[in-house]
């Protein structure tokens, strides 16, 4: 971890694109969606900030942020319970009482927090792109190129029929962004925005105040896509693995991708760990008839059955004779004996009694609600 960088303020939009995963965001924000056995999506941007030395982070919430508050607490587990900077949860209400619609009015609502910061630069991030990134080279490039705004992007395969939220960037010869397309109906390798950008605090202030007076709410529409805005918008290419979570299918697929060593090595680096709320669970206990293949299993599980190609979160119990395949089983599930389960996503604390058979498919995983009892 680099030393502390007081010159950058991190802002995380915990609820951007909540609508893409209605099943999982019914009770929570995008940021508090459980992921990868022991994490919540917000752990990735938070850890990216912390591992880049940025220790002043505001989290902008929208609706249903109870679970997010519970997860973040004082920020201690991310080392963000600080006197200088630290973690701040920023509720969504404006002075007039309304909840924001877009990034610009969200920023307007919480501007007094940003105003108090001494930071010269602000990095904005969403929670729906899972990746590990060091922001220091981004900041360096931003300064060197004299950009007004630098968008972080990756090259990756894109299919306009499937990817619903992706913003595609196009560059001119000088590497300046000259076109920004939201979910275009195209296919092939594209420059995909990772929903992260860097901007100076002064410029952001000007943009936010200007938008407020003109009743503009969308940063993408009014600034990035507005060719008349006159800002120099550059791109920073992030060359490492990223996973966009924008549907139940991509959520399931991203969890399954963690079964690849390459994915895990790209996300969970020894020197830049992904921090999360500590659960104080004991190690996993495997029983006498346990049979595990190609699975990611979090602490606190007790497994006596067969688990293949699956991700099990903390404290899941799997009974004897039960076979689980291609599934994502969230925290606290109790699965009885002799069940057959495949392509299932269970939300937290689901109970599945003995002898149940539940088979989804990879293109259409079955989803079971929080506290569901089968």
């Amino acid at each position: 971890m680099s030393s502390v960088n007081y010159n950058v303020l991190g802002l995380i939009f915990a609820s951007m694109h909540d609508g893409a995963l209605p099943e999982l965001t019914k009770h929570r924000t995008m940021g508090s969606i459980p992921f990868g056995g022991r994490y919540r999506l917000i752990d990735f941007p938070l850890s990216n900030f912390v591992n880049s030395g940025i220790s002043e982070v505001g989290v902008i919430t929208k609706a249903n942020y109870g679970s997010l508050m519970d997860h973040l607490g004082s920020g201690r587990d991310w080392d963000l319970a600080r006197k200088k900077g630290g973690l701040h949860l920023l509720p969504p209400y404006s002075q007039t009482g309304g909840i924001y619609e877009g990034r610009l009015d969200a920023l307007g609502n919480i501007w007094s927090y940003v105003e108090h910061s001494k930071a010269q630069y602000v990095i904005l991030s969403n929670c729906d792109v899972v990746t590990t990134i060091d922001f220091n080279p981004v900041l360096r490039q931003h300064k060197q190129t004299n950009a007004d705004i630098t968008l972080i992007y990756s090259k990756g395969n894109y299919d306009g029929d499937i990817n619903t939220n992706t913003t595609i960037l196009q560059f001119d010869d000088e590497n300046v962004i000259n076109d920004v397309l939201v979910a275009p109906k195209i296919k092939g390798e594209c420059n995909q925005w990772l929903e992260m950008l860097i901007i100076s605090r002064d410029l952001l202030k000007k943009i936010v105040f200007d938008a407020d007076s003109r009743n503009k709410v969308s940063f993408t529409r009014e600034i990035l896509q507005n060719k008349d805005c006159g800002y120099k918008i550059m791109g920073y290419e992030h060359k490492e693995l990223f996973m966009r979570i924008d549907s139940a299918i991509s959520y399931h697929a991203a969890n399954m991708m963690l079964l690849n060593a390459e994915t895990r090595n790209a996300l969970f680096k020894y020197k830049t760990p992904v921090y999360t709320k500590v659960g104080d669970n004991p190690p996993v206990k495997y029983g006498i008839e346990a049979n595990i293949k190609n699975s990611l299993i979090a602490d606190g599980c007790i497994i006596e059955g067969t688990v293949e190609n699956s991700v099990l979160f903390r404290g899941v119990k799997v009974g004897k004779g039960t076979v689980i395949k291609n599934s994502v089983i969230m925290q606290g599930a109790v699965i009885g004996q002799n069940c057959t389960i495949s392509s299932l996503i269970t939300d937290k604390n689901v109970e599945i009694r003995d002898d149940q058979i539940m088979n989804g498919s990879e293109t259409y995983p079955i989803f079971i609600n929080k506290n569901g009892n089968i």
Partner: protein
Amino acid sequence: MYTKKKVVAMLLAGGQGSRLYALTKNVAKPAVPYGGKYRLIDFPLSNCTNSGIDTVGVLTQYQPLVLNDYIGNGQPWDLDKMNGGVHVLPPYESQAGASWYEGTANAIYQNMNFIRRYDPEYVVVLGGDHIYKMDYSKMVDFHIANEADCTISVINVPKAEASRFGIMICDENNQVTDFVEKPKEPKSTLASMGIYVFSWKKLEKYLIENENDANAKRERGEKWSKDFGKDIITSMLRDKQRLFAYEFEGYWKDVGTLDSLWEANMDLLGKDRSLDIHDKSWRIYSRSSYMPPQYIGNNAKVENSMIAEGSVVDGSVDYSVLFAGVTIEEGATVNYSIIMPGTIVKSGAVIEYAIVGSDCVIENNVCIGKRPEQIGENRDDWGIAAIGHNVTISAGSVVEPSELVGENI
């Protein structure tokens, strides 16, 4: 300004644990890893928190670096408190000169000012090298109900083993009438667990007395000691103070030797779950390693085992305990063994009935330990093989049962 506390706990964590050999070469015994993600000291610290004791002094002396780092501000055990909390108390230099802790009683004597700040009614004295879950508040209640000066926690041990322990002889009201350290012919099977509750004013008096007596003896060139069992308890008995035995029922394991450390880990895998670390009402807390969940690969065979976060297993693991961040490659076999954090076991290696320390590299086709039945006639030669911390065992090497390896081979 310190608030008064009813109970202050003093945890004796200076032990070297010399019978754990290479495993305690660079770490104090209470910092020895146990049970996949714990260190021994997690048990008394978690017991304190769960018993409502929020002021704990940890007395360190031998190799304190790892232990100090581990305890930190006490946050994992909820012991980062404005008033009270956990305090690491190393030996220090005063106007009278610098002095190492000269025994368990002297360690507390030298830190009487720490205790006095909280003006407690009772002081609980604990060790840092036992595995057990115990509600100390019940023992304090027992102490109060008996109007005792000192209460000693005891456990009923098999008669054959009684001569290994400090044995308490009690009347029908649990009042202690005699105490014998490691008797050849034990008159009772109530063994001291090294857990004491003292009424603080009484303890203060006896600590000062013992200190003065022992120093006087030293000046006269006589044998002296400053030890709880040997000196404080004996003096209190001599003076007809009210000493009571508090009988503990449940899992309690002294991990003083490699064999008992191995057994204590294996106990977590047995059917007889008398130590249930999955019990949410009495959690054992530990400092987290921030590693991703464990990955069990396509070629893995994992049964009857306990495995901690961050591990990657693609080999065969049976009846074993794997700590955080352990790698078991495809084609490696680990049976009836304990592999401590960060160790890599490469393809073709076979580890049986062994303890391997942290951050070791076990190269291809290494063979460590053997099953007792493989030994043949002379079973006396058989024992747990042990590898220290940060040791590399080069490809094809053989480590025999009972062998202890502390350096690269």
